[in-house]
């Protein structure tokens, strides 16, 4: 086992220890005996269109064969999914039997009682076999799925860690650069490689509420004053002004034209086609540069998120399957969750789809994880583990604040206004701060 690998494991263990440990005792295995007690049941299941969610669709016939449960499954885009499910959950509707618990909505959806506690399911030996092993999930990925009393409402299927990737590392090498380790190195590199062979030097998706906070934090700012304890927005600060100036300069001068409208799926395509080079993006998306249909599979490179003046704060999001309170057949829903995040399927998705952002310790510690996460000679698995290790800084706390969606909307608007020249950073963030406070107060929060 390599030194890097040992370091990664230490990092992983360190992070999970820092986040706290959970004692979950799995019960006895139920007698399956080939019986299909839910045969004929139909489940409505939805998640946003993440790579995992789309790959999972290919395995659904196996679930139906195994349990006799039919599945209506859909994977709309991120924003559409969140709007649809938020509305459905808020009305106590029964349209969904299983739904993804989106990271930025974990606090809101779980806190409002819109999801079902799963403790009685996974602790019941008649419903859950020992092999499910709830304690096998990384504690850090399960924390957002719990309420203040420690009840579990979801099981995570992804730890969406933000990495750096390059689709045309050959261009960077020819210009004498490696993967930048810092924001300064990045800024020094982009003028030298921009439009070389027609490739834009930099790109990122237009969900600024996801891409920008790590930059904001790297300059010493944050979304809230001291999340989750003090949730007064902290958008109008010199650090945030400086960070936005840096980011908008980077995108406007070295990003592709139209970057403000470039969604995550478009960004993946841009990278796979090699039309833009260096990117700060989620691991499952970046990994697609190494896919067989990618034009950049032999020129791509991966690295840790670069360090800013105040440190390194890559985004880390967790999404998990849960059962809405209004679901009509919760036992059948639980059958799906057990299967979808079971050890077997997660391992198979790792092997067969190259799914590397897994959440089970047993899968991460398997030799296959390292093997699959070697992409074009880069140990992406190690980058992934070291990124998760950075979670112990607690920098992702801002994202679990129940009124984060309000701040998220203002961050998106502010970046757009600065990038399109409608406002200076000072003007845009002052307006964002005022709007965020007004929107959060409308939710009944005393600031």
């Amino acid at each position, binding site marked *: 086992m390599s030194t890097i690998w040992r370091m990664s494991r230490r990092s992983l263990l360190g992070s999970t220890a820092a986040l706290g440990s959970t004692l979950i005792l799995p019960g006895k295995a139920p007698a399956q005996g080939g019986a299909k007690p839910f045969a004929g049941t139909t489940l409505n299941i939805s998640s946003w269109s993440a790579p995992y969610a789309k790959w999972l669709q290919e395995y659904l016939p196996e679930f139906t064969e195994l349990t006799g449960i039919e599945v209506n499954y859909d994977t709309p885009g991120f924003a559409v999914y969140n709007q649809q499910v938020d*509305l459905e959950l*808020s009305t106590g509707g029964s349209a969904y039997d299983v739904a993804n618990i989106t990271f930025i909505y974990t606090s809101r959806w779980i806190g*409002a009682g819109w999801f079902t506690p799963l403790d009685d399911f996974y602790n019941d030996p008649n419903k859950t076999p020992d092999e499910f092993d709830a304690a096998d999930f990384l504690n850090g990925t399960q924390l957002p799925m719990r309420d203040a009393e420690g009840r579990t409402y979801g099981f995570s299927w992804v730890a969406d860690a933000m990495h750096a990737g390059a689709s045309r590392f050959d261009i960077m090498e020819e210009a004498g650069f490696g993967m930048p380790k810092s924001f300064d190195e990045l800024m020094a590199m982009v003028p030298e490689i921009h439009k070389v062979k027609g490739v834009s030097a930099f790109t990122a998706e237009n969900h600024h509420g996801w891409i920008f906070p790590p930059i904001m934090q790297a300059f010493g700012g944050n979304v809230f004053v001291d999340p989750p304890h003090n949730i007064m927005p902290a958008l109008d600060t010199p650090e945030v002004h400086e960070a936005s100036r840096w980011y908008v300069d980077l995108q406007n001068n070295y990003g592709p034209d139209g970057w403000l*409208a470039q969604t995550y799926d*478009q960004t993946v395509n841009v990278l796979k086609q090699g039309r833009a080079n260096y990117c700060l993006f989620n691991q499952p998306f970046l990994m697609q540069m190494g896919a067989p249909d990618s034009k950049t599979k032999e020129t791509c490179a991966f690295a840790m998120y670069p360090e800013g003046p105040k440190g390194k704060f890559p985004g880390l999001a967790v999404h998990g399957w849960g059962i809405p309170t209004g679901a009509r057949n919760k036992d059948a829903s639980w059958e799906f969750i057990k299967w979808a995040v079971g050890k077997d399927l997660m391992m198979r998705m790792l092997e067969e789809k190259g799914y590397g952002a897994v959440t089970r310790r047993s899968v991460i510690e398997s030799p296959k994880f390292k093997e699959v996460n070697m992409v074009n000679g880069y140990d992406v698995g190690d980058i992934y583990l070291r990124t998760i290790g950075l979670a112990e800084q607690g920098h992702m706390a801002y994202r679990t604040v129940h009124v984060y969606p309000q701040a998220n909307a203002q961050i998106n608007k502010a970046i757009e206004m600065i990038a*399109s020249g409608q406002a200076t950073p000072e003007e*845009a963030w002052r307006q964002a701060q005022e*709007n965020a406070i007004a*929107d959060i107060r409308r939710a009944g929060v005393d600031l």
Partner: protein
Amino acid sequence: MASAAITSWDRQRRRAFFWGLFPALAVLAVITVAPAVYLVVTSLTPLNLTNPVQTGLDFSDPLRNYREAIADYRFRNSVWVQVKLSLATVVAQVLIGLGLALLLNARSKLLEAIRTAFLIPMVLPPIVVALIWKIIYSPDVSPMHRLLEFVGFPVRSLITQADTALWAIAVADTWEWFPFTMLIILASLQMVPDEPLEAAKIDGATSYQSFWYVVLPYIQPAIIVAALFRLIDSVKAFPLIYVLTNGGPGQVTEVTNYFAFVQAFNFSYWGYASAIATMLVAGVFLLSWLLRRLDQAGQRDE
């Protein structure tokens, strides 16, 4: 006695009309009036779906949402954006529709085929129209951008520039709906009698004079109806904005219904969003009434 019989007959007739109309009125009340009443009632509460029990029945400050909306720069801006978008699209759609209707107002199989082809944008699902324009406006994959670059006139992404984004939406909306105005005006043109046109020709009128003094007065009511329909419908310009710009960059393309949508669907502020929607509906009613009055005044003058 005769008068009493007439009154009785009249009463019976009214009753028959009422019961004949009753099923339709009942359906209308259920699907239109009841939701509208609910909308107005909701707008008087701070209803937030994360806490519906406490907020849904709180009528302690019923005008709070309205006060906050009027004081909210984003709401006022969204109304101004809506006004600009509506004026631009309605004027463009009427002018293009009129021009094409005049060109296509003749009997020939070729022109019939062209007319049918022009109707395609209008019958496409709005989301498909939005996706077509998303491709056209994405520099990365856009045939328009590639063509302009090829001929030496490269342009930057139109939907991400503050000074072009709204007009890019207006162009897409005009493309989608000019067939509607064209169709109405064309139908009206085909009703213009030949005699006055022949008389004008004998009197030596030019084509322009024939159009201005003979044809236009005939088709004017149709133009006004088409414009009115489009004006009311322009308030619903949602799919294009949702797919192309999300109301951005910043708030440049954030029309009022999109702003209400964000408040309701992103933040669950249904009371606030209902107040915005109520004001929007009131505005559309007011506009329709005003235009109708103007039209009636015009007809009286004639």
